[in-house]
């Protein structure tokens, strides 16, 4: 979606300083009873896509598959509201990391950009120093750590160091970190890089609670904080001017039972001047011009030398099961390798023992 601004408000035009938006959305829990964590992540994914960030700029990591899980009574759907009102999975979803690929190592590699060379583009966070990044984590956590798939964990120190690496490598302009786990505020205690704003669903010592179960599906569908966050985001459209102070008020203690927290001391701008769409949407600013631009001449295709390419022999399809050929197939020539250490050592030992026992004079009888 585009926001067209007049040229005389150029100051406001460039106030945010970012030119592109990225989102990294991670669900770290496995197993069917953690359905709500996948629903949390998918509802943020849905909002972010609706407000304009394309799939190529979203890295979505889901640790387990709930939509096509055999226990799901309605396959290919993930609901966020009971009575199956809203399907956050939708028909157009691209999951970049799924199943066993969601590990602490892969998450940190995505953030810092240190991926193996053969990683496809859709799995990379190709942000630059003018990118605003939204990072959303959900799952089971504790005081100072977040559990990944019930087998490993990431600590708040590691996360803070990863963000510092991103800052040193100029991989972000501003970063918004949202976490919805138990004792989530402990995860942002250790941040020390500039331009970070963090929100958490509960303070240290508190548990984040889930919202409501659906009796047909049999599990809790969403966590409270993300449920009210989704309701808040459903009212946002690409041209809305809501700012971060409204986001801090989402889910007060009366609705959430836990106390959501936030941290803005590392952020350079005043949170009241930061728009929600600076992080959740991809508002492209365009400038209308009346000048004409001359395009270069089209590149001419090279003449194909078709004379050499005509194959004179007839091609045929290969026999799918050539029984006689298979039976008479020669075994593959195995390369000869010199005998390895164990065999050599064994033979040396045998020879040594023999000559020690019987003496060297027998050598001429053997050879």
């Amino acid at each position, binding site marked *: 979606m585009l926001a067209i601004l007049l040229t005389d408000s150029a100051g406001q035009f460039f106030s945010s300083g970012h030119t592109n938006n990225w989102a990294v959305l991670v669900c770290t829990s496995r197993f069917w009873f953690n359905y709500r964590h996948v629903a949390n992540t998918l509802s943020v994914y849905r909002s972010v896509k609706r407000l304009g960030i394309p799939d190529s700029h979203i890295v979505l990591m889901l640790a387990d598959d709930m939509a096509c899980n055999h226990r799901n009574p309605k396959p290919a759907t993930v609901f966020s509201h009971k009575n199956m009102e809203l399907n956050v999975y939708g028909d157009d*979803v*691209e999951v970049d990391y799924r199943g066993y690929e969601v590990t602490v190592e892969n998450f940190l590699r995505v953030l810092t950009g240190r991926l193996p060379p053969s990683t*496809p583009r859709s799995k990379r966070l190709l942000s630059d120093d003018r990118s605003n990044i939204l990072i959303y984590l959900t799952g089971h956590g504790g005081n100072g750590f977040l559990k990944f798939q019930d*087998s490993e964990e990431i600590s708040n120190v590691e996360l803070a160091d990863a963000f510092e690496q991103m800052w040193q490598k100029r991989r972000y302009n501003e970063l918004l970190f949202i976490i919805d786990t138990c004792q989530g505020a402990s995860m942002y205690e250790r941040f020390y890089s500039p331009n970070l704003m963090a929100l958490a669903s509960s303070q240290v010592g508190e548990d984040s609670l889930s919202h409501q179960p659906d009796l047909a599906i049999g599990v809790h569908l969403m966590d409270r904080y993300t449920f009210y966050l989704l309701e808040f985001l459903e009212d946002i459209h690409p041209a809305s001017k809501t700012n971060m102070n409204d986001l801090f008020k989402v889910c007060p203690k009366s609705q959430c039972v836990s106390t959501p927290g936030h941290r803005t001391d590392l952020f350079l701008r005043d949170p009241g001047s930061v728009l929600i769409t600076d992080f959740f949407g991809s508002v492209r600013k365009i400038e209308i011009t009346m000048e004409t631009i001359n395009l270069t001449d089209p590149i001419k295709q090279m003449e194909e030398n078709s004379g050499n390419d005509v194959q004179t022999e007839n091609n045929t399809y*290969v026999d*799918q099961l050539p029984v006689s050929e298979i039976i008479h*197939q020669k075994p593959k020539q195995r390369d000869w390798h010199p005998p390895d250490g164990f065999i050599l050592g064994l033979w040396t030992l045998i020879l040594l023992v023999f000559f020690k026992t019987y003496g060297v004079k027998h050598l001429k009888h053997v050879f």
Partner: protein
Amino acid sequence: MWIGFSLLMPDCFSLSFLKDLHWCGVCMSVAPPHPHTNTDSFQEELVVRPLHSGDIYASFQFRTVWEADFSRGNKVSHYQLFPKSLGQVISKFSVRELHISFTQGYWRTMQWGQPFLPSPPGAELWVWFQDSVTDVDGTWKELTNVLSGIFCASLNFIDSTNTVQPSAAFKPLGVGNVTDHRFLRYATLPREIVCTENLTPWKKLLPCGSKAGLAVLLKSEKLFHSSFHSQAVHIRPICQDQRCKSTSLELRQTLNAVFDLHTSGQAKREWSLFKMFSRTLTEACPLASSSKIYIDITDNSQGEQFELSPASSLLSQAVVLGDRRTFSVYDLTDQATFGSTRSLNLLIRDMLRPLLHAERYVAGYGLQTGEIHTVMYNHHPYRSFPVLLLDSVPWYLRLYIHTLTVTSKGKENKPSYIHYQPSKDRLRPHLLEMLVQLPPNSATEVTVEFERALLKWTEYTPDPNHGFYVGSSVISSLVPSTVATNTSITQEQPLFSSFFPCKEELSYFVRVYTEPLLVNLPTPDFSMPYNVICLTCTVVAVGYGSLYNLLTRSFQIEEPSPGLAKRIANVIRRMRGVPPL
């Protein structure tokens, strides 16, 4: 017994004139082929076949044929109907043939017959590279990573521990004379889950996307609520014409789905496109040269029990899987097809019993040893035929090949060809290929014992108590058929009958996949490190700590502090200069 099937299409007579104009507009905007650019064509078809058990089988095939030649390293930069992402993959990795499939569910051969295009549960990928590739393993690893990004699947888990190089199975399905098996790689991921995130990029590869034509029917909510769902991409070189002087590149995207009578059909044997897909068709893809729907009406030869709606005068006969079947054809490019709605009723009678089918299971007890049994059934009354069995077993099930037995009808059946490559721990899986002759009307059982290995504790998945999967066995065979098959492949044949090339008229090639196996490996208790640390620290703290304190603590006598009255009295006595109490 009446079984209903209705083909619902909206009434579009009033809009037909406008539609003609719209199509002419599209034709005009597509430029005539430039002599220097490559020409490609696109065909789509849907085959609907009612099955014996009341379920219904729908098979979509989308074919793009492109007269491009990648074999000599020609750089292509102009893509029209052929998707650019796949074209770049083929040229960069020098791929001759690529076959990838994603399947959810297991195909029940005895209840449903043979599928048009078989596929094993999970993901399967097999690739033939060009002979110009020097490092096949490195190229294979890069190719799997790139494909995992294109299809949103975890194909990057394909590495040397689950890749094999078959020596006799999986011959190329395209034209060409090279059959050096050093350029073939085969891997399968039985655990791979298939969901909307795999269907979305697959749909985006089609020229019309999911906006027009038959792909409009592909909605995930209905497709994944089925007994079997399989989507595949097959790329291979084919002959351009009968004489086969030059080749063109064919891309086939296929989607097979079987809808269950009770879950999708509400236990009523009346099927319609709306009931199966929750969508109806309004137009063919404007970029398609042919767009057809085939309904299998073989079991209604007399015509009196049929109520085909809308009735089609086009009938076509095709020999598919050794059986001559009659189809009622609806040509979507013809405007007259879209008429008012009518309903179609079919009667299902006995279909041809499949001649070859197989099953596989694990026998034994405990977590140390076990046995894998593969049973292959030959239902032909008097003919025997050879089958090629390909088994790829992961390294953590150590097979004892000296216990391999093949028995048919109680007697030992010696295979005429065995190729066995043993596994290397953490490097390579077992590969077993055998050519076995199946006697008529018999069940052949292949048994091999194995022992389970203990993995290192970092090698376990986050949910190890679920078990570990062993990929399906592949059984390829030339099954004798009663009806002569057409050996020449022409462009006019329906797509579903022209996938596997056949050289002989009296047999057809079929590939059957068995079930994947789920075996439990001995799993350690992962909470033990935490328990050990707690216990050790407690013992150290209580035992050693107390001893240390006893040895190094020094004791001092200390007067108990006096009460309040005494303290005040001491203060007064100090002021007086008298010694305290």
